[in-house]
């Protein structure tokens, strides 16, 4: 009797494990592994363990301001972005844990942009942040955390934990592409027509303030936890406030965050303050109010590269045979961006 019960329990266990595996696979296929979020999130995990000099974590301003293949070509540093388009700042803590497991010795640049109100973050945004992360306990914690902070309903939670609930309706548009992961080989280098071609003058909307405002509770908690973690684990971290237009309210929050970060003694690069030092031009270096175009990105890449090399003594790895994929990335990426570069920028391709 007892043996029969044990056999039944084992069978149920195997049935459920297989069910989970099939569901996971089906979700993975149906969600369609393509687009920026896939390249930036899943692409990060394609890098060999402990191979990166630095990781730039954050929302879209990271990969629209960091041109990894060109930084490699010019300075020989292997720095990748890790994030996605609408990633909220409060996800950074868990993403840092995840990235740290894979690249324990890297320097971490953490963008503090991406502040959302509770009602601003949609289920789709949570999907975008979490869907392409490999399955792990940390990923589940991240989902749980985001759902809690953004007060997701039970049904919303279910569709985030089980992405098949959202993506199953794509079955009738399945094609071969869905079954193969196609990673771009640009090391996170952003490829987009607007990024290359578009110029928007944002000088009129540029705004400054020295005022401070209390952070929303859940942002404050995340920031404190992350700062405590970085301190305890002695993480080499530098916080970055990306150059982008923000409303008055958000700028006040940023000021409060900066105070807090500085109170822990961590370095911070404020691209808004260093606008001139970087050489940014609000009239020509942005493709919209929130993102630099390729011209602005090259300036920021240059600025950050010099900062990283100087502060963390990063060594030039260009002759290291382990990093040939970075050379390949440069070759591929430079071909793409060449037609869009200004004359004074062509030195990046030498």
């Amino acid at each position, binding site marked *: 009797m007892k043996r029969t*019960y044990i056999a*039944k329990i084992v*069978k149920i266990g195997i*049935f459920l494990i*297989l*069910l989970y595996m*099939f*569901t996971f696979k*089906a979700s993975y296929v*149906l969600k369609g592994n393509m687009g920026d979020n896939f390249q930036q999130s899943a692409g990060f995990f394609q890098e060999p363990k402990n191979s990166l000099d630095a990781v730039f974590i954050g929302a879209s301003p990271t990969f629209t301001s960091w041109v990894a293949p060109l930084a490699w070509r010019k300075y020989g540093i292997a720095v990748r972005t890790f994030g996605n388009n609408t990633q909220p700042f409060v996800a950074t803590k868990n993403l840092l844990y995840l990235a740290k497991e894979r690249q324990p010795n890297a320097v971490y640049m953490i963008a503090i942009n991406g502040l959302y109100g509770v009602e601003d973050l949609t*289920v789709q945004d949570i999907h975008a942040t979490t869907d392409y992360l490999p399955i792990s306990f940390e990923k589940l914690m991240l989902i749980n955390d985001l759902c809690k902070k953004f007060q997701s309903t*039970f*049904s919303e939670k*279910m*569709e985030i934990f089980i992405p*098949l*609930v*959202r993506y*199953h*309706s794509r*079955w*009738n548009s399945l094609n071969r592409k869905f079954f193969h992961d196609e990673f771009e080989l640009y090391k996170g280098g952003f490829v987009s027509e607007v990024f290359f071609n578009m110029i928007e003058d944002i000088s009129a909307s540029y705004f400054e303030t020295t005022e401070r405002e209390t952070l929303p509770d859940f942002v404050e908690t995340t920031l404190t936890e992350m700062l405590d973690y970085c301190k305890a684990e002695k993480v080499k971290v530098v916080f970055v406030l990306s150059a982008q237009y923000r409303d008055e309210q958000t700028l006040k929050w940023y000021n409060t965050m900066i105070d807090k970060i500085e109170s822990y003694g961590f370095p911070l690069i404020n691209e808004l303050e260093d606008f001139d030092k970087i050489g940014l031009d609000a009239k020509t270096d942005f493709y919209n109010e929130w993102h630099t175009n390729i011209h602005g990105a090259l300036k920021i890449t240059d600025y950050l590269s010099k900062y990283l090399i100087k502060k963390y003594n990063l060594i030039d790895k260009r002759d290291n045979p382990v990093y040939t994929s970075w050379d390949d990335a440069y070759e591929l990426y430079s071909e793409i961006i060449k037609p869009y570069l200004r004359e004074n920028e062509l030195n990046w391709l030498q």
Partner: protein
Amino acid sequence: MSITSFPFLLFFAVTLGVYYILPLRFRWSALLVSSLLFFHFSAADYTIIYAAGAVLVTTLCTRGITKAEETGAGKKARLWLILGLAVNLGILATLKYSGFVIGNVNFAAGLAGSGLRLPQPDLLAPLGVSFYTMSVAGYLLDVYWGICPAQTDIFKTALFVGYWPQLTSGPITRYNEVRDQLYEGHRFDPRQVSFGMQRMLWGIFKKLVISARLGVVVDTIYADTVTYNGFYIWVAAVSFLFQLYTDFSGCMDIILGASECYGIRLPENFRTPFFSRSVQEYWQRWHMTLGAWLKDYILYPVLRSGAWRSLTRWTRAHLGKKAAKQVPSILGMLCVWLLMGLWHGGTWGYIIGWGLWFWLCIASAQVLDPVFKKAIRLLRINTECFSWHLFQSLRVFVLAAIGNMFFRLRGFMETLHVIRAGLFPDNPEIFFDGSLFSLGLDAPDFIAMVVSLLVLLAVSVLQERGSVREQIEKQNLVFRWVVWYALIFGILIFGMYGPGYDAADFIYRGF
């Protein structure tokens, strides 16, 4: 809380766990608490007052009937019975039919030129009122007739009235059938729980994969019968029949499966109705508990009543023996079918179209039976072959599809208009030129719907031979698991649920 939603699955898992953790003698109370929770999650809380009233009155009246019968006070027992029926049916009538009555009074007043205009009441009926009222009325009559003893514990009566699986869409239960099952705790039986869950899966498949898709087609066509006429009407009629079947029987599969997990077997409501060879048989296989209830508590008492005996005698004397056999039974059936229509809703569409249509079909079949038999003999039709059975089933199918149009369209005149629009179809090209893919479903979705209907047909054929789950159980493990995985992924991938889909509620939940 829809019974195909994630919150429901969570609710079910938790209540099932609690049920089996509790000692046997307390398990029925777990069912009662879970029923209250289900009510709370699924309906406006205040409407529970109606259900509580029904429980209280039923407990009092059945006690009164028992006491009166013990003391030989037959008249008193009858009064208790009448009180119990009056209160329970009164609540149902007030909640469900007051709008219908007032609407007709206003209409009649308008015809008479009177300025009388009574306001329409805005009453919210409790969950499952039509179903539990029938169960309670049957219970009162059973106690009165001495078929079953009265339940003295008001909480146990409450469980009989409000047992959550039957609140959504029935089935209409008899006290005698379920009392032992409800109140005795059931030991955990993995096979039974597994069977229950398998049945729930099949029900969810029917609802989310088949019914939801058919619903899109039906809604598209009936929303614009000017554009969609001719064969489109027939497509909608057939689609709706399948939609209603997969929706209602799917709901039953979920409910009966869930109940089976607790160890409680509720009565079946469907037995492959589309294989019926006559309308009468169809109604013995479709919504079986309602048909059986009306037969036992309305038809038989009516046929046994003094008035009907007098009618039989009168008919025999004036119209002959043959008519004496048929006329009273046909008139008795008329009462049943009028009530059948009325039970479904207070509209003339239900009463005339739904109730009287099927009565007309059954009655004419009975009256014309000798003519049909003669024609079959003359035409030398072999009635013992597959093609004849197929013809009979198709005939029932068409008649049921027409009847269901009254159900779907609700308005009597509107239904007649739609039938007229499909009466002489002149657009057969819609079956060949891709027009069917413009009815809200694209080609892959349409194909998914057709394939799942074929799966339904295959399962129905197997059901005619016995329990499908038992047949699968006899197979090897790999085959069994492939079947269940296919079903689970059929639902997960092809089901119309989640973001992007507006999951419609079960059609019979509205009653």
